[in-house]
């Protein structure tokens, strides 16, 4: 029984590493920053998630820290890529020529004076 679990875990680890590789390939092939963020974030999140989940099946005694690490990645990874995309759009990193629409009005998000932040 334990043996089967180990093999399933190893296959999951392999699958995760393939996703990581595809994400890296997307990072190289995509034409502009925003598409690169898309390819990179999704693939690295699922890839790392699957790898750690496979390890969890192989070594069940380590469940505590592995579960913590998986939750941590699921929360922080999308947040950091959102913050990065927001900053990049603000400093006008160009979108690719294939882009069909850009509805985010740049004039709306100008500097806000600190007083406004204080009165949250």
């Amino acid at each position, binding site marked *: 029984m334990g043996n089967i679990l180990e093999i399933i875990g190893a296959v999951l680890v392999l699958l995760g590493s393939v996703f990581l590789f595809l*994400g890296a390939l997307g990072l190289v092939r995509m034409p502009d920053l925003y598409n690169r963020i898309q390819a990179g974030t999704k693939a*690295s999140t699922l890839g*790392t998630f699957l790898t750690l989940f496979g390890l969890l099946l192989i070594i069940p005694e*380590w469940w505590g820290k592995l579960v913590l690490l998986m939750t941590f990645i699921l929360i922080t990874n999308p947040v950091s890529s959102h913050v990065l995309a*927001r900053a*990049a759009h603000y400093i006008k990193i160009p979108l690719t020529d294939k882009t069909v629409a850009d509805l985010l009005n740049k004039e709306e998000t100008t500097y806000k004076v600190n007083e406004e932040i204080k009165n949250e």
Partner: protein
Amino acid sequence: MVNTLLFISAIIILLAILLTFYRFIKGPTAPDRLVAFDVMTVSSLALIGLIAKFSSRIIYLDVAIVYGLLSFLGVIIVSRYFERGL
């Protein structure tokens, strides 16, 4: 059997990190490099997990948690610096 599969996965992850390193050097803009850095560190977390399994030491997972925390903070600090929010 299991160890062979894990070893192959480790090599694939290393190749992935090498590919992101290409984007890291090439750029062309600073946010591009930051994305490459982000993907690189998150892939390294998986690699650290595998290394912890190979040497069967759970303490490496603590290292992975701290590393993930620092990379998250690093990406956010640099992005906030780009948009003048620091």
